[in-house]
């Protein structure tokens, strides 16, 4: 009896492992095909602009709001923490470095995942279950090139821009709290930033944002593109796309930070 249960358990673990390996293989093949398609004509600029508008422009408000409050809370918490050690003058660099190196790219990536990534998955998923992707294929229009490529390209392009915007607004939010509310001098706040933020920090943040742009659009389009089993399938694909993208952003953030420190 126990032997039978052990065999079943091993079989179950084995089948899960095989499925995981298969899924990873499919995901990387999908990514490879998308990256190759970047360089293959036709280049549909209108599609790309539409996606830049959808992923970028329409995420501006939520990014600005998140950045403002992230910067504000960072300054508020940071001020009282640093005050315990008499180091309030370091508040500017603390806020700026936290935002530029970590919070900017990570929170931008997570916000884009929630706002645009989920919509990408749902849109492609619905197109799949309503046979619109099959229709493209029958028309002789490669669906991957037509639907996925512009979305991934747009993600790679807009995430760094959104991150830069997040950085600027976040630091400004910190300034509002530190200078306007807590009475720090603007010279101290910005002087510290100027002397402590280096190009390397900005580059690290931008490398992260490009990577997160790729992760969000890759995972979300993959999950949508291979959706199955009707409306329930779309719901499942959307949830798993958001969860997987968010987790991968945080995991990837750790590894990039380790390498770039």
């Amino acid at each position, binding site marked *: 009896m126990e032997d039978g249960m052990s065999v079943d358990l091993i079989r179950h673990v084995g089948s899960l492992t095989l499925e995981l390996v298969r899924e990873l293989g499919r995901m990387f093949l999908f990514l490879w095909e998308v990256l190759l398609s970047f360089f293959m004509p036709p280049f549909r600029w209108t599609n790309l602009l539409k996606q830049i508008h959808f992923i970028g422009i329409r995420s501006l408000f939520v990014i600005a709001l998140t950045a403002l409050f992230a910067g504000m809370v960072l300054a508020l918490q940071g001020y009282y923490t640093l005050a315990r050690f008499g180091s309030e003058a370091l508040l500017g660099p603390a806020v700026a470095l936290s935002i530029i190196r970590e919070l900017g790219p990570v929170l931008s990536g997570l916000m884009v995942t929630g706002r645009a990534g989920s919509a990408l998955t749902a849109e492609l998923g619905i197109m799949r279950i309503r*046979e619109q992707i099959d229709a493209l294929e*029958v028309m002789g229009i490669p669906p991957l090139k037509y639907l996925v490529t512009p979305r991934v390209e747009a993600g790679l392009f807009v995430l760094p821009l959104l991150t830069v915007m997040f950085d600027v607004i976040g630091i400004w939010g910190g300034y509002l709290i530190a200078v306007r509310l807590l009475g720090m001098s603007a010279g101290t706040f910005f002087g510290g930033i100027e002397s402590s933020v280096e190009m390397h920090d900005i580059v690290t943040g931008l490398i992260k944002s490009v990577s997160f742009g790729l992760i969000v659009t890759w995972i979300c389009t993959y999950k949508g593109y291979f959706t199955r089993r009707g409306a329930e399938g779309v719901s499942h694909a959307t949830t798993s796309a958001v969860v997987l993208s968010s987790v991968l952003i945080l995991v990837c953030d750790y590894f990039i930070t380790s390498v770039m420190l």
Partner: protein
Amino acid sequence: MSPPAPSADSTHSTSGATPHLSLGQQLVANGCVTARQLDLALQRHRAGAGKSQEDEHLVGHTLVEMGYISQSNLLDCLYQQFARERDAYQVVNDNQPVIQLEGVVKILDDRRVLDAVDLAIPANRVTAIIGMSGGGKSVILKHMVGLMKPDQGRVKVNGQILGQLSARELTRIRGRFSLLFQGGALFDSLNVHDNVAFPLREKTRLSETEIHTRVMRCLEEVNLVGMERKFPDELSGGMMKRAALARALVTNPEILLLDEPTAGLDPIIENAIHYLICDTYMRTRYTMVVISHAVPEIFKWCHHVIALHRGKVLFSGPSHEVGQSRDPVLRQFIHGELDGPIQVI
């Protein structure tokens, strides 16, 4: 009047059918309109809005506009001609089918959906594929356009094996097909006009003016003029099917595949869609494959019938011979009887 269109039948499976004439000639030959009326309609049609010879197939609409024939009489005349051809149709073995499935096996979710299927689709004819739900009809259609690959066997289009084609060659072959999906598969973000224009914008270098002309011609053919600014979610089921049919027709395909074009429609719209398919066939002589559950109604609207049951071909032959089959499964299916070899309850 334009010269008769070349016979699409010269190498195919018909005996006793009259050579194919242009739409106008058919109407005159059947006594639906006079030669004089046709000439007048053609003159007006060509003069109006600078329409070209290419638009001659719209002469039927001009005849209706000029009051020489009513829309329903026009469709009925075309149907009568179609019925004569259908009743004269015979399968000839030496004829080269346009699509062939040879020993095709497909297993989906551990179920043998297609079990060594052999079938041939005759060129320039309307073929209906019938069978129980879940019997593999749509799977067959997807094999014909290469959306699915057989686990065993092969699919040939004009003698070319699909599985051996490169991606570019497959795309070229697909350019000869149009597929009307069961749900229409119209793009939600585009209105009817842009949906129909989509394949032309993506696959041709036509100017926007030319695209607009062709789109409007197709919408006129399916009686959807005035609906071009509507989005798919604003259309009824019948309109959706007609818009999808217009998109399928706009590229002038050689082979038109229709996946349950009348599913979920009321009897009047169902009849209208059948007339529309007949009208399209009579004007274009495309090879058509229709999947349908409208049995035995569909036998009126096709030359050839293929019946599937449990992944195998049960019957393949002229539509006027289906009723003579002694196969108990086929007889039960055609008559919709509860008692018989197919256990449903």
